[in-house]
């Protein structure tokens, strides 16, 4: 029997909880101990440590949270999840914050505009062909967003990967792509927080 919440407008905290898949300990039980901040391999380069982000979520700093690079620098390595003394699934919350950042459209203005687009480009191929396509990913992603990088990629590592036969030229496709598309479309339709 959860306590009856007085009928108040949903806070940013409620939004984050709704978007997370709800397994593991509750975000509000965080005791701000910093284990996650201390464990994170990309921690030093984050605007705020995960712990800092949780304090900001609780304080309702929606914009600062969804503008920060923290969710995008999470490499989902699960150090924080296995070590969190309150059993909070921090990585799932970071995924939720990425999705909320995209929904809120905050990601364009930040310097971290590489992350969301990389994911969207990657998924573009998957939704159309059923499988990922590194070459297409590398070219379209770099040409569209970072032309300078593209040259470096093509001559350096990209070339070597080609000669070693580790790059497809044509995008691999699954047979029953229509089945996948109808599944994904239905899923998008149902979308929303589950």
């Amino acid at each position, binding site marked *: 029997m959860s306590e009856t919440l007085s009928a108040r407008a949903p806070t940013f905290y409620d939004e984050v909880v709704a978007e997370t*898949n*709800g*397994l*593991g300990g509750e975000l509000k039980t965080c005791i701000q101990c910093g284990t996650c901040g201390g464990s994170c*391999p*990309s921690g030093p*380069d984050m605007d705020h440590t995960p712990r800092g982000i949780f304090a900001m979520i609780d304080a309702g700093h929606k914009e600062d949270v969804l503008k920060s*690079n923290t969710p*995008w*620098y999470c*490499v*989902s*390595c*699960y*150090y924080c*999840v*296995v070590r969190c003394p309150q*059993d909070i699934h921090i*990585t799932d919350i970071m*995924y*939720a914050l*990425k*999705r909320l950042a*995209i929904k809120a459209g905050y990601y364009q203005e930040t310097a*971290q505009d*590489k*992350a969301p687009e*990389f*994911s969207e480009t*990657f*998924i573009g191929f*998957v939704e159309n062909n*059923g*499988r*990922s396509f*590194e070459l297409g990913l590398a070219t379209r992603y770099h040409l569209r967003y970072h032309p300078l990088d593209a040259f470096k990629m093509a001559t*350096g*590592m990209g070339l*070597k*990967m080609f000669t*070693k*036969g*580790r*790059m*497809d030229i044509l995008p*691999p496709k*699954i047979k029953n792509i229509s*089945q*996948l598309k*109808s*599944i*994904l*479309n*239905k*899923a*998008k339709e*149902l*979308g*929303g927080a*589950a």
Partner: protein
Amino acid sequence: MKFSYYPGCSLERNARSYHQSTMAIAEPLGLEFDEVEDWNCCGATEYFAINKIPAYALVSRNLALAAGQNGSRELVAPCSACYINLKKTDHALAESPELRSKIDQALEAGDLAYQPGSLNVQHLLETIVKEVGYEAVEEQVTKPLYNLRVAPYYGCMVPRPSAMESFDDPEHPMSMDKLFETLGAIVVDFPLKAQCCGGHMTQISEETALEMIRRLLKNADDYGADMIATVCPMCQLNMDAYQDAVNQHFGTDYNIPVVYFTQLIGLAFGISPKELGFGSELISADAALAKVTEEPPKEKRRRRVKKNAGLPMPVMPEEG
């Protein structure tokens, strides 16, 4: 032993050698893989960053196909990201009724269905270590990798499949270490063997990614590794293909080949390097492989224990 097999996109091209070597050692290990018919990409860490329900639906199609093929209940995934997505999705469907109902409807749109829990998702390392077992591997060893200093690198998702139970220690895994001991190699137990290689970070902030990769290379090098063995195409790509970028960026000169653990098993079984896909690694493994000798290294004369050997160490529960 029959297993359903989910190769994943990387094993089609980028990690071709991982697939080749897995197939090559399957027969001697008594493993029979039947590939999931028309499987699709697992979305890696990308789809969950964009849209939750379609991300779960994408993975669920694979689970439905695998279960539908009523082959073996055990679904083996060699790639860590595919392994964790399949396992995480099966777990989430079982735990969350709302998610379950949405995914059921989505699958229905493609007239598929999946009953959570009807598959036991395993990583390939887990299959070899737990299902086959060290003894069965040892029996097949014909050319032990004597004198080869191998650093087993587990990456992050195999030891720590989110909050789910891992088949090995989440902080200090040893299963691959023991596996290479049975292959006769000198195992380099380097402390960062379960720390993340950065995953797709190279595409987001190269600065951060190269630093994460540098740490692993430095640690393996400091502990005298001739070679790093991985269990995941992403880790192999980051440490192999970006080793050059690390050297340029930090002015280091690492030259450590990064191979798949299945390739080394194949070598120890006497299978030819070519057949195991050696040569596809950007940092060539030839020099390291040349170090393998016929006879085992001589037992170094045990130095007499010094008189005041200092203070005793606490004994670890299951030693060795």
